[in-house]
């Protein structure tokens, strides 16, 4: 056990090193603000009085589906923030190990720091939520503006969200620390990269075929069962299939890029992806889900547009369209934030690699292109597969949508494209940070 003054010294040094905590705290603030506003939106639907009381069930169910869809991007964002807070402590930790701190003490210090950053971040996120409330209050549901008051979540619910986030941060950090080996000379993160076997793709294909078969079985059942099964089958199973096939697809796409690379940027990006395809998948899996949702919901809404204006459901299609657009764009924004956080962390983690490339004479713009290719290349490969799967699974609905309301389908494509564009944009936003890091003077260790 370390004496208290040493712990205090560690804490003081952590606080003084602004760069080490500013980004994780900011990341947690973002997660907290987005999560609480999403929960507030869902609760609003559950508490709203509808002109046609029977419509309440439909709205509540749809809001739950939106929450289900947004859960993965929000968890990804929270995990990115948690990973960020346990990085870059090598020098301090090995120094403490050298003076006799036990491995458990060091882990406790890192965990304590991660939790305190999470607490600070989620509380700051309350401010972001407060800023979003009046904006979200402008939403129209069932033909009337919901108002800011409807978007205010009770304090215990907010506290519960914050507690969940802090718990998630603690668990993620603890899991991350399992891979860290601490010795008196250095702190190393083990990187075990299992190979991407084709069996993953085979299981994924079987899962997609199963969705098609099961969908046909349940399509004539009671309304509520159809709705529940539809939600689980249409989004859950394809996502499970993609999570099995995703890293394999990233690996295949990177292998192809490595073989055909004509520029150093593409070669380095391909090799980086091949070294850890799971990392790229982890970062981008929500893009796949959201693209799948955009295609599916876009087709469905195009078909439903036919029923617009019928008594009792005058506003349903409009509200569903607004909800779908908000869900998809909110989801993509969340993914973009996670990519931004991961890229910032990667710039810090791989500082030496980028600095060495610049030392050899590689322009910063080329290094930046390498980094951005490691996001865009797997993203487009995954999008191709996700959209392709969605089109296969939803072929009848999409076909009908194109026939009945091509404008709605085109609208869905525009929204999805806008959403997807946020991801490379987020990566580009970190270019300045890369340039600053790479061009920082290399302090000569031996003078």
């Amino acid at each position, binding site marked *: 056990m370390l004496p208290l003054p040493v712990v205090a010294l560690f804490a003081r040094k952590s606080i003084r090193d602004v760069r080490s905590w500013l980004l994780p705290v900011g990341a947690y603030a973002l997660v907290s603000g987005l999560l609480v506003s999403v929960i507030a939106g869902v609760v609003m639907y559950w508490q709203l009085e509808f002109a046609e009381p029977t419509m309440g069930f439909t709205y509540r169910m749809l809001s739950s589906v939106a929450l289900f869809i947004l859960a993965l991007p929000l968890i990804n964002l929270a995990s990115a923030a948690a990973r960020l807070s346990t990085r870059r402590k090598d020098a301090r930790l090995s120094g403490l190990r050298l003076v006799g701190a036990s491995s458990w003490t060091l882990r406790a210090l890192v965990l304590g720091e991660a939790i305190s950053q999470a607490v600070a971040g989620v509380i700051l996120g309350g401010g972001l939520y407060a800023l979003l409330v009046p904006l979200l209050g402008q939403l129209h549901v069932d033909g009337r503006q919901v108002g800011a008051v409807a978007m205010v979540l009770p304090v215990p619910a907010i506290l519960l969200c914050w507690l969940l986030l802090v718990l998630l941060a603690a668990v993620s950090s603890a899991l991350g620390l399992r891979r860290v080996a601490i010795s008196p000379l250095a702190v190393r993160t083990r990187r075990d990269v299992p190979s991407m076997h084709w069996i993953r793709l085979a299981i994924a294909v079987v899962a997609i075929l199963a969705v098609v078969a099961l969908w046909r079985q349940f399509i004539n059942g009671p309304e509520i069962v159809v709705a529940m099964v539809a939600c689980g089958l249409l989004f859950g199973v394809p996502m499970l299939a993609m999570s099995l096939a995703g890293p394999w697809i990233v690996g295949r796409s990177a292998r192809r890029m490595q073989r055909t690379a004509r520029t150093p940027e593409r*070669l*380095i990006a391909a090799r980086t992806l091949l070294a850890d395809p799971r990392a790229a998948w982890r970062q981008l899996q929500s893009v796949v889900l959201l693209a799948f949702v955009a295609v599916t919901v876009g087709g469905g809404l195009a078909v439903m547009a036919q029923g617009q204006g019928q008594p009792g459901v005058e506003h349903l299609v409009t509200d569903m369209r607004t909800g779908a657009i908000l869900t998809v764009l909110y989801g993509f924004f969340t993914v973009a934030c996670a990519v931004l956080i991961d890229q910032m962390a990667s710039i810090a983690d791989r500082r030496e690699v980028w600095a060495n490339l610049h030392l050899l004479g590689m322009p910063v713009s080329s290094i930046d292109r390498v980094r951005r290719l490691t996001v865009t290349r797997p993203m487009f490969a995954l999008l191709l597969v996700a959209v392709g799967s969605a089109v296969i699974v939803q072929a009848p609905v999409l076909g009908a949508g194109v026939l009945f309301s091509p404008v709605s389908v085109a609208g869905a494509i525009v929204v999805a494209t806008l959403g997807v564009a946020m991801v490379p944009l987020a990566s580009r936003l970190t270019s300045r940070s890369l340039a600053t890091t790479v061009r920082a003077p290399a302090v000569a260790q031996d*003078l």
Partner: protein
Amino acid sequence: MSYPQLQALDLSQHYGPTPALDHLSITIDRGESVAIMGPSGSGKTTLLHALAGIDVAQSGEVIFHGADRPVSIHALSSEQRADVRLRHFGFVFQQGLMLSELTVVENVALPLMLCGVDRASAQQTVSAWLNRLGLAGMEDRRLGELSGGQAQRVAVARAQVCGPDVVFADEPTGALDSVTSGEVLHALLESSAEHGTTLVVVTHDESVAARCGRTVRLRDGQVVSDTAVTGVMAP
């Protein structure tokens, strides 16, 4: 008749109150092999970084005499200095500066590809270099699969592959045993001598310095001795 390749004029650099370079001036001629020696903290690495345009000293100037007109390294932007490093300099550092994700052949081909040479031609040139340095058959290996000596010979190949004017080496044999160290140094000196490349080596090792044509000793950021070595051992 000697022609200057690099000139450092009145360089000064402080890290806090510690002087790393103190009004230091030095001229290095084309084709010379120069060992820069001195105790820890004497300014060796800072001088190498300033000469190579990796960092810019707080005051003073570095002039590089390439095939065209002389270039004031310190007057260039960060990206212009990167371009000079790519086209005119090679580097062999103790830690190798290699990318662990790339294979041996890809690592060595990287500077050529950055200069615009197509991948197939670059890999052909690299294979010839790897053969010369006793690394044939290791093209597709990762750096983790090489011994320390092999990894440093890969670094020598990468430093020389573009035909640079100057190769900068910072403790190139620092992490190697004496036998392997001799082999790496031999590869570095031989390849430099063969192509008339200027070689600047920062080292603590007297045996490394003994194989260079000139030894410059630093203390507290100043040159305390500058001696041409007579009867330099053949590479």
